[in-house]
């Protein structure tokens, strides 16, 4: 009897241990935090972008109308693009840094709107959902992916998201070399003095680098305030107890580094420990992006692969302007679209096109990832009233021979309503008069509300277009 009881207790203990460990195991793939000043004093709007293990959330998707959890829409029962998952694995909650309650959801941990998936490499990425915006009234209504908070006073607050765990040493098909099963931490300093907003970035959760070669790639970053941006590798403490690639004990002899001005990340991968054949060799790294006042983290993986002599390219369709490494200006309420085409000159290669950092409400048609050579998809987005600011989205092309190319695009959503020249939130004769008086002069910039057609010049055409947007008939003054 005693023996039977002992066996039961041991079994229960082992089961509990297994559940506890699996509940926090090997799911973190990517992390980034970005924020902007709110419209009231000491208010901040935060976006959390993360990637998690793709098969960790089956049947953990939330219906945002009924707020019930259940099946997901992705392949194999996994979460798909547009699903909302409960991040129960790490029970992630965001800390504001001022002692106030953490942000989670009515389920406990944060919810994430899935914006891209990679079934082959078993990850999904998403952006945290504002729990106070749920439930939504109707299926298809916009999902608010901005966390709002107001601090009691000005100051520099260290806000963070941390838990356990990063990928373990061997979670087939991945082998994580330098920080297996380690804790993850992404932290930012929120300092709202002078109306500052943070830099923002985006990165594919996994960047491919060649084995035994010098790898260079640029960290995309932008700052909505126009502040000068600098880059550095995060410290161990900032990243939750961490070994950067090439640091002692990381499994690689040559330390990675980043140019503080250009953001070019460089790593000589010679001598780095490799996974067994058929497995992915992964090294985790975290970069800190600073604007002189604040800092934001970018945590991602580097996967070592064989060198592809003809890596894939991402180009616009013929006769279309470039899109990669550009800033595209979008006016609130306008629909913005562009095509992304990826190809590889090696016709034996197939190319997988994927995206990272899609804003809420943006979509790709067809849905990514897709594979072929060439492959193309169309980006489309109509930013809503809550989405003024800078957004970075990145497209990646990965060839079957291990080639890798990224295409970052900055989407600058203008808060200024076109035609509202006097900024009083309505369009009337006063606005038309200002535009009329300024005709045949240069616009002050992309956000000039008088330059409706964005051709850099204020003309009678802009004035005429604005007369059609007046709030009252015949542009009567409100």
């Amino acid at each position: 009897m005693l023996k039977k009881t002992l066996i039961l207790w041991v079994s229960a203990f082992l089961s509990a241990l297994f559940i506890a460990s699996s509940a926090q195991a090997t799911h973190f793939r990517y992390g980034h935090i970005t924020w902007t000043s709110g419209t009231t004093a000491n208010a901040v709007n935060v976006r959390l972008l993360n990637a998690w293990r793709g098969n960790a959330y089956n049947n953990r998707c939330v219906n945002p109308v009924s707020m019930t959890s259940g099946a997901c829409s992705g392949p194999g029962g996994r979460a798909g693009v547009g699903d909302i998952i409960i991040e129960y694995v790490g029970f992630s909650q965001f800390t504001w840094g001022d002692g106030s309650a953490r942000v989670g959801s009515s389920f406990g941990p944060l919810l994430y709107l899935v914006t891209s998936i990679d079934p082959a490499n078993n990850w999904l990425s998403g952006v945290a959902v504002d729990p106070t915006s749920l439930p939504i009234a109707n299926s298809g209504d916009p999902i608010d992916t901005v966390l709002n908070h107001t601090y009691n006073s000005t100051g520099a607050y260290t806000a963070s998201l941390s838990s356990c765990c990063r990928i373990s040493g061997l979670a087939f098909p991945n082998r994580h070399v330098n920080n297996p099963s380690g804790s993850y931490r992404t932290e930012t300093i929120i300092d709202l003095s002078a109306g500052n907003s943070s830099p923002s970035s985006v990165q594919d959760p996994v960047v491919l680098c060649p084995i035994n070669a010098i790898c260079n790639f640029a960290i995309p970053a932008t700052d909505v305030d126009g502040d000068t941006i600098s880059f550095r590798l995060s410290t161990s403490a900032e990243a939750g107890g961490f070994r950067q690639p090439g640091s002692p004990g990381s499994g690689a002899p040559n330390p990675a580094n980043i140019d503080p001005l250009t953001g070019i990340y460089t790593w000589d991968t010679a001598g780095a420990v490799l996974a067994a054949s058929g497995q992915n060799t992964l090294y985790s790294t975290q970069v800190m992006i600073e604007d002189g006042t604040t800092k934001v983290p970018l945590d991602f993986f580097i996967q070592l692969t064989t060198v592809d002599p003809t890596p894939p390219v991402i180009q616009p369709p013929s006769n279309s302007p470039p899109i990669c490494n550009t800033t595209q200006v979008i006016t609130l309420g306008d629909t913005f679209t562009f095509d992304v085409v990826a190809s590889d000159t090696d016709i034996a290669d197939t190319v997988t096109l994927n995206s990272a950092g899609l804003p809420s409400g943006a979509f790709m048609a067809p849905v990514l990832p897709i594979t072929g050579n060439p492959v193309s998809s169309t980006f489309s987005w109509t930013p809503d009233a809550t989405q003024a600011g800078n957004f970075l989205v990145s497209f990646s092309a990965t060839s079957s021979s291990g080639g890798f190319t990224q295409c970052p695009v900055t989407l600058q959503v203008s808060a200024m309503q076109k035609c509202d020249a006097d900024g009083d939130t309505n369009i009337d004769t006063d606005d038309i008069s200002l535009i009329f008086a300024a005709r045949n002069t240069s616009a002050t910039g992309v956000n000039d509300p008088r330059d409706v057609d964005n051709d850099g010049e204020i003309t009678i055409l802009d004035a005429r277009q604005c007369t059609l947007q007046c709030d009252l008939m015949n542009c009567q003054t409100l």
Partner: protein
Amino acid sequence: MFKKSILPSIVLPLLLISSPSAFATVILDFSPSAQTVPLSGQASVDITASNLQNEYIGAFDFDVSWDSSILSLASVSFGNALGGGLLSFQAENTNNSMGTSSLTELSFLSNLTSLQTGNTNIILATLIFDTLSTGQSALALAGNISGGGFLSDENGNLLAASANSGLINVVTVSAPETLFLMGIGLLMIFGIRRRNESDDNSVSQHYL
């Protein structure tokens, strides 16, 4: 003598500088395209739009130029095809020493069908010139929209247009002609007085 001096002026060629386009374009003209006026008289000329082909003009913005040694712009009146009054903004900026005037009108009306048919020619503006000296002054139009456009359609898009030039010939009326005209005038005055007197007599007789 009269025919010899006047006719050549009346039949001055109407010449036109137009820029043909591959697309159907609205045509801007001066109307009349050519005219002769006596020195110290005035010349009136309309700026018209034709060949609209179901297009509606929501705004225009162009410069008019002339020979400032021959003409001086006395007044501008805008047409009513874009609304006028409280239904449009109108602006005129004239520099008579340079012989230029910038004319702009912007309609507030979202629907222009009550003022334009999309086909019928419309008058954008009427210019009245004083004459300063004899000679021929060409009239020309230059578009101000994005480096050369003249017109906006009803939606605020550039409306393709080409502009023809005009001509005003200012002449001096010669002495014989002046005397001839004065004689005619005196005869007419004399005749009118005689007729009035005759009418008065007949009326008097009638009442008698």
